[in-house]
């Protein structure tokens, strides 16, 4: 069953009078439980594509359909609901709130889901996720007290908090050492296999890409299977 379909999606930016198709007429289908990697040069449109799939950047034309819903035809609240409950997004850039501890940053996504406070069960789960990414001793640390790589892992843990169906990971291991990177990859694969979570991962590391079931390459806004 096609879980996610991207139909003729184009995203055009205008920069100083120049027209840039960051994503150019991409059509793609992704099945439930697939582990897809995307490689490509900087500026080739990977982040833009991921953002469009993640419901945070409206395409200039084309449709993104997730489990039968045309994302950009949804109203604002339902699109937020999609981002909150279906997607776990690991952004390319740092994305933690500085006033919150590691655990609270992870619990934040729960607030947008439940409308209430985070329960004890949620707290336990957040701690569990932090342990899974190797930060069991940093639960109450603030982002400023963490290294770049540790912050990155908090963001990774956060992506799993609401039991997403689809993980969008934008260079998730970019600032991790080799050993930690390998650990994270094992963690991703176990989540992919164990929970049947679909993964779309942008990476510059071709070794990592080789470990995935399906490999894509982007260049100049276009995409091709490898």
């Amino acid at each position, binding site marked *: 069953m096609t879980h996610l379909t991207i139909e003729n999606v184009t995203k055009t930016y205008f920069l100083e009078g120049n027209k840039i198709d960051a994503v150019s007429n991409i059509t793609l289908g992704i099945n439930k439980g697939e582990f897809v990697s995307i490689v490509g040069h900087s500026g080739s449109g990977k982040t833009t594509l991921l*953002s469009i799939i993640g419901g*945070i950047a409206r395409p200039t034309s084309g449709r993104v359909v997730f489990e039968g819903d045309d994302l950009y035809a949804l109203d*604002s*609240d339902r699109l937020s609901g999609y981002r909150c409950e279906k997607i776990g997004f690991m952004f390319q*850039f740092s994305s*933690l709130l500085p*006033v919150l501890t590691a*655990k609270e940053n992870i619990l934040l996504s729960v607030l947008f889901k439940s409308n209430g*406070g985070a*329960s004890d069960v949620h707290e336990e789960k957040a701690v569990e996720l932090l342990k899974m990414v190797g930060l069991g001793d940093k639960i109450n640390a603030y982002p400023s007290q963490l290294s770049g790589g540790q912050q990155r892992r908090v963001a990774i843990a956060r992506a799993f908090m609401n039991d997403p169906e689809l993980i969008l990971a934008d260079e998730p291991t970019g600032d991790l050492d080799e050993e930690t990177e390998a650990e994270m990859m094992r963690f991703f694969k176990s989540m992919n296999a164990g929970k049947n979570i679909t993964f779309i991962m942008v990476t510059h590391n071709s070794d990592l890409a080789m470990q995935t079931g399906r490999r894509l390459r982007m260049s100049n806004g276009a995409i091709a299977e490898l």
Partner: protein
Amino acid sequence: MNGKFTLISLASKNLKRKPLRTLILMIAISLLVSTLVFALSFVRRVDSSIKLTSERLGADILIVPAGSRGAAEDILLENKVKTFYMDKGIMEKVGQIEGITDVTYQTYLITIQGLCCSVPETMVVAFNQDTDFIIKPWLKGKVSGRLLKGEAIVGSESAFNIETGAIEVDSVLFGNVFKMVGVLDKTGTGLDTALFMDEANLDDIIKKGKSDMKPGQISIIFARVKAGIDPYKVAAKIEDSVIEVDAVARKDIGKNLINTLRDINRIFSISVLIASLLSIFLVWAIFSAVVNERLKEVGIMRAIGAKESHVLRLFLFEVIIIGSLGSIVGIVCGTAVSFFLAKGFSIMKNISTDLSVLQRVYISLTGFVGGTIICVIGALSPIQRIKKTEPLNVIKEV
């Protein structure tokens, strides 16, 4: 971390990150609210004191020598010590006017300071026990039978009462010995600080030359009118037919004070309005800055699933925390100021009625709601703006 993690915890953490800014906003709001609470307390207190006096005065019309109206009001409303006199014969003339059912009169004297003991200057009211309907209602069961010559009763806040701590104490007034035989119920009017005796005592006092009044003089006449008859019309008729007097209908008592109060009220209103506008502007300016600083964070929250309503709520919690804490501080300060500073206003110093608990609660609630709403109004447009933040663009602006 203690307690559940909620949007409110995030809001309070956000406020703590810029403590000085939060404090400035809270101080601004508390200044505004304390001004509001002080103004309301002041105006309400004077206003209800006047209303109470006119309600509790058992007469529909009071009649005083022409030109003494202000002095009479000073006595009744502000516990001031004053005297004025007119001929007793005027009472018969008044009593004959159509529409009037009962009349009684009182004579005002002032104790002479330093004559004896440490008796401070006090109003002494001599009244006619046969016709009286002003004092009796406040004497319920307190004094058995008639007041005899040489006996006196005191108002509930009378200095005699307070100083001696006992009722049956002999006091020397105007060179005569008086026995204090009772205390009047609290009336909430100028009567509370006075001393009352039967008019039979007047002769002795005058004979001993201790007062500047002459025999056969009285100070004030109280009249009741027939049910259904307009006291204003009767008062006008009295002034027409008896030129030596001023007649004041009950509802007009304190009219001058009420007019003054209206002006004070206007000044307070303008001050509170200006303070409100300044506070709104301050909240707006600070929240505009806050919102710009936090665009990226809000973009992140939106990207991980926050709805517009979550963003709205988060920022509303922040302003409401500031507004409500600031208001509470303001209520405490405003109430304290109205307690202490009010004593410096002569209009307040002499007013006997204090605010009831209910009035204080009402004023505090007004202050609380007012302060909080002002805060919300100020922050509304920045919040509306940030609520619409789109997720991605801001995230890329690292």
